[in-house]
């Protein structure tokens, strides 16, 4: 397990060294040095915001190429429900699942079915006395990483249930192996992902050892193939087994609807989530049972690796679910099913201390004093021209030895003025 694994990467040749991603990164994890952006591994949460905003498409997500499925004799596709939102005139979920299977998979297993199980498990969790309120959803791995890095004091609020994709993969593999009498090693489970954070969560899981998934293919990559397949038509197979509530997890508010908790709250967009987590920290929302935060606007439908506009996708999913039979997750999933698979975390979620200046508090205080002193000399414009997102982060970078004061163009300008003035004075003195 590689701790520093990140799905979000930089394509060096395409990067122009502009300040767009620098200014938009919610965890201040990007620096521009020598005309190129650099991602600081310890701070990046793989939310993919930089992928979305980069005008030069220099930020990319590392996902598995489609052909990687051929590593396995048997392959199962596990589509995120957000996939269904990519096709405006889809008509039925079975159509998407049939098309997907025909692309070269032996089976498809909806992640929405995993979501149904997780919904049921959540309902049970909320019944327990003494759970920290609000319980915070663990479905968005970018938000869990955000909490690890910036809200370590909220870690005990995070739900200890695995993500729907993990639960779905556990179910899919066991079901397939039993049905076909094959060994689990021969079966590859591939998540069809709307975002890089899920890819990272597969490579370095949070809360458990190994992922049940063998890879992730982006919705963007599969979109063209699947669109072509759908145009071919053909008979639809009956593959859809999820409830509309499981499918609804694709949209912000879907989890809250699935657990049927009136006293819950859904927030989308990472900056909004940060603001509400601050409120939770202040105990301002302890009357709330459940908090669902998603890094992307609209929820997973707004993922950076999706094709369709997030709002269009959201609407498509809404229409699809309205047409489905309205079975509740607790009716579809029996409580006994919760013990059938290892759906709960086995490892604690650890803080990553991304904000910590030093492990020793005295050292940290010294460093902070130095940073304050340096920051006083900076103009406070937060222009980003130095390559650090704000004057304060530049002060920190200087204190850490990663940057110099003359990286600030205003400091440089005034230094040049002083030097020019000195030159004039010198030349006048030599003239006499």
């Amino acid at each position, binding site marked *: 397990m590689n701790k520093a694994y990140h799905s979000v990467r930089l394509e060096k040749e395409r990067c122009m060294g502009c300040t767009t991603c620098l200014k938009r990164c919610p965890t201040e994890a990007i620096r521009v040095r020598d005309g190129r952006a650099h991602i600081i591994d310890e701070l990046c949460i793989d939310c993919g915001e930089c992928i979305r905003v980069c005008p030069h498409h220099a930020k990319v997500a590392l996902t598995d190429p489609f052909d990687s499925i051929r590593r396995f004799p048997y392959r199962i596709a596990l589509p995120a429900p957000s996939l269904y939102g990519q096709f405006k005139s889809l008509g039925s979920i079975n159509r998407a699942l049939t098309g997907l299977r025909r692309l070269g998979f032996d089976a498809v297993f909806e992640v929405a079915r995993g979501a149904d199980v997780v919904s049921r498990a959540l309902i049970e969790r909320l019944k327990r006395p003494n759970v920290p309120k609000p319980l915070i959803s663990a479905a968005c791995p970018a938000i869990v990483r955000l909490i690890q890095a*910036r809200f*370590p*004091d909220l*870690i005990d609020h995070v739900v200890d249930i695995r993500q729907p994709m993990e639960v779905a993969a556990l179910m899919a593999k066991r079901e397939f192996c039993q049905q076909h009498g094959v060994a689990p090693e021969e079966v590859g489970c591939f998540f069809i992902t709307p975002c890089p954070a899920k890819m990272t969560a597969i490579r370095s899981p949070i809360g458990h050892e190994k992922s049940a998934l063998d890879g992730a293919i982006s919705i963007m990559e599969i979109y063209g193939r699947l669109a072509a397949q759908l145009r071919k038509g053909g008979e639809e197979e009956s593959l859809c087994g999820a409830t509309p509530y499981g499918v609804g997890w694709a949209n912000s508010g879907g989890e809250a609807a699935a657990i049927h908790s009136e006293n819950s709250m859904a927030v989308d967009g990472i900056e909004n989530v940060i603001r509400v987590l*601050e409120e939770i*920290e*202040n*105990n*301002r929302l302890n009357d709330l049972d459940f908090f669902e935060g998603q890094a992307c606007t609209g929820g997973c439908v707004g993922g950076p690796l999706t094709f369709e506009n997030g709002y269009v996708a959201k609407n498509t999913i809404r229409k699809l679910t309205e047409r489905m039979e309205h079975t509740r997750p607790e009716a579809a999933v029996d409580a006994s099913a919760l013990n059938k698979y290892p759906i709960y975390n086995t490892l604690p979620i650890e*803080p990553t*201390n991304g*904000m*910590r*200046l*030093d*492990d020793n*508090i*005295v050292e*940290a*205080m*010294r460093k*902070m*004093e130095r940073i304050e002193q340096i920051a006083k000399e900076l103009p406070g414009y937060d222009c980003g021209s130095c390559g650090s997102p704000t004057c304060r982060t530049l002060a920190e970078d200087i204190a850490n030895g990663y940057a110099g004061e003359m990286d600030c163009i205003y400091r440089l300008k005034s230094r040049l003025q002083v030097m020019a003035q000195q030159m004039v004075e010198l030349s006048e003195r030599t003239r006499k």
Partner: protein
Amino acid sequence: MADVSILETFDVERGAFETAGEASATIKRTLKRLGVDVGILRRVAVATYEVELNLIIHSLGGRLELAVDENWVRVTSRDRGPGIPDIDKAMTEGYSTAPEDVRTLGFGAGMGLPNMKRNADDFSIASEVGVGTTICMGFKLR
């Protein structure tokens, strides 16, 4: 080593709801950067937010002060009045003098002072009518 310390001050004005929470958010950030233990962090966050809101709602304006050394996090609130006539009553859970318009905003449930005391390891309050109130909260780091 006790000579190393961090000191930050924040002016908090009466009725400044638009900036409510900024001082406590900055204090929280500072403590996270210093690597203060998460359990303590949470208690400071809750108590500091309460005290900041108190300055906005009840005081005529004042100042929040954060002092950190190796052993303690201390948050002090000093205001310019009006002062609390009966501190024992003010420390009673549910007792509130917040005006109606403030209470409809969800503030002033009468839990502020008791909540601060509960969260701090060391709590003291002194007040003089017409002069002001000083609240000192200490959180032990080790």
